């Protein structure tokens, strides 16, 4: 007996031709192996919440598979995955409060980090914690992931010309914070 037969909904769904999946199981396992650490690090470091990063990472992969293959090879798939993760993170922040992302005070989004010492390895560094969430995202994508301005614009949904200015400001602020910390 096939395991799928034990779940009626799945058995019925066999009759319904679904769209082709983005990848087969083995391809996805290899892609997951190549990208999961980076995606989790991005989500954990920009949100300051490892548990949230766990949830959003899972949801990102499920949506990635459900959306179909974006084309453009591994690089495009990876930035598409980061785009999904960024959108999920933004949705999470928006659900929690109604003010725009750029107006969020940094200490609120990082509140969970500053409270505990035990998760210090998983949470934000003091300099990152004092930045606005969007600035953290931009700096992470530009410096830790080495994405170009155009790729960052695609991932964050911002206009390419404004990335340069936003990154300039975020970089200046972070450098100041790091120097103060040092």
């Amino acid at each position, binding site marked *: 007996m096939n395991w799928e037969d034990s779940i009626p909904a799945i058995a019925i769904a066999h009759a*319904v*031709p679904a769209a082709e*999946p983005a990848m087969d199981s083995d391809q996805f396992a290899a892609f*997951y192996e190549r990208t*999961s650490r980076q995606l989790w690090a991005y989500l954990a470091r920009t949100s300051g919440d490892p548990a949230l990063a766990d949830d959003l990472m899972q949801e990102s992969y499920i949506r990635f598979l*459900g959306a179909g293959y974006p084309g453009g090879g591994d690089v495009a798939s990876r930035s598409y995955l980061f785009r999904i993760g960024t959108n999920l993170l933004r949705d999470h922040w928006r659900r929690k409060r109604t003010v725009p992302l750029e107006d969020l005070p940094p200490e609120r989004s990082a509140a969970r980090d500053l409270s505990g010492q035990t998760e210090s390895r998983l949470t934000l560094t003091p300099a990152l914690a004092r930045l606005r969430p969007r600035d953290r995202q931009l700096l992470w994508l530009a410096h*830790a992931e080495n994405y170009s301005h155009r790729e960052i614009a695609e991932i964050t949904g911002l206009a390419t010309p404004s990335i340069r200015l936003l990154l*300039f400001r975020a970089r*200046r602020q972070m450098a100041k914070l790091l120097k103060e910390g040092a």
Partner: protein
Amino acid sequence: MIRNCSQLAEVRQALNSGHWPQAVAPELRAHAAGCNRCTQEILITQHLFAAKASAITAFQTEALPPAPALLWWRAQLCRRDSALAQAARPIAAAQLFAIAITIAAAIGLIATHWGSIVSHASNIPAPSFSASAFVALLGNWGLAPLVLATTLVAALGGVALYLSTDRH
């Protein structure tokens, strides 16, 4: 003012390849020491690289990532569910259409035979208190209570159908 440095690309490449600072030319290091933009780049990139490395270590040692096979299986379930919902949509529409036709036919039938219904009800003997009261009510209000009741049933039927779908 946003200013870029002509040697920033070189510094960035050295940072990304892990060659900074040991495996770069002394001239580049000397330049970076005196260049505000390059100093900023080095400071931030090294800080974020360290943060990324510690996060990756934490992911490997402390986080509980799901197996990729499980995620793939869950994604397939979601795809099948959405495909199933898409396929079931015309069936639900047909059911609604059938209900609407039935209700319209019932109303039409009652409307065409209304006269005979009223005369038949009025011929019922006196002890049937409720029937005579109903006839009196219909005589005063016409078809209004019937239409109201039918509308109510149709509306409740729609709500029941909506709530009985899988999604709810």
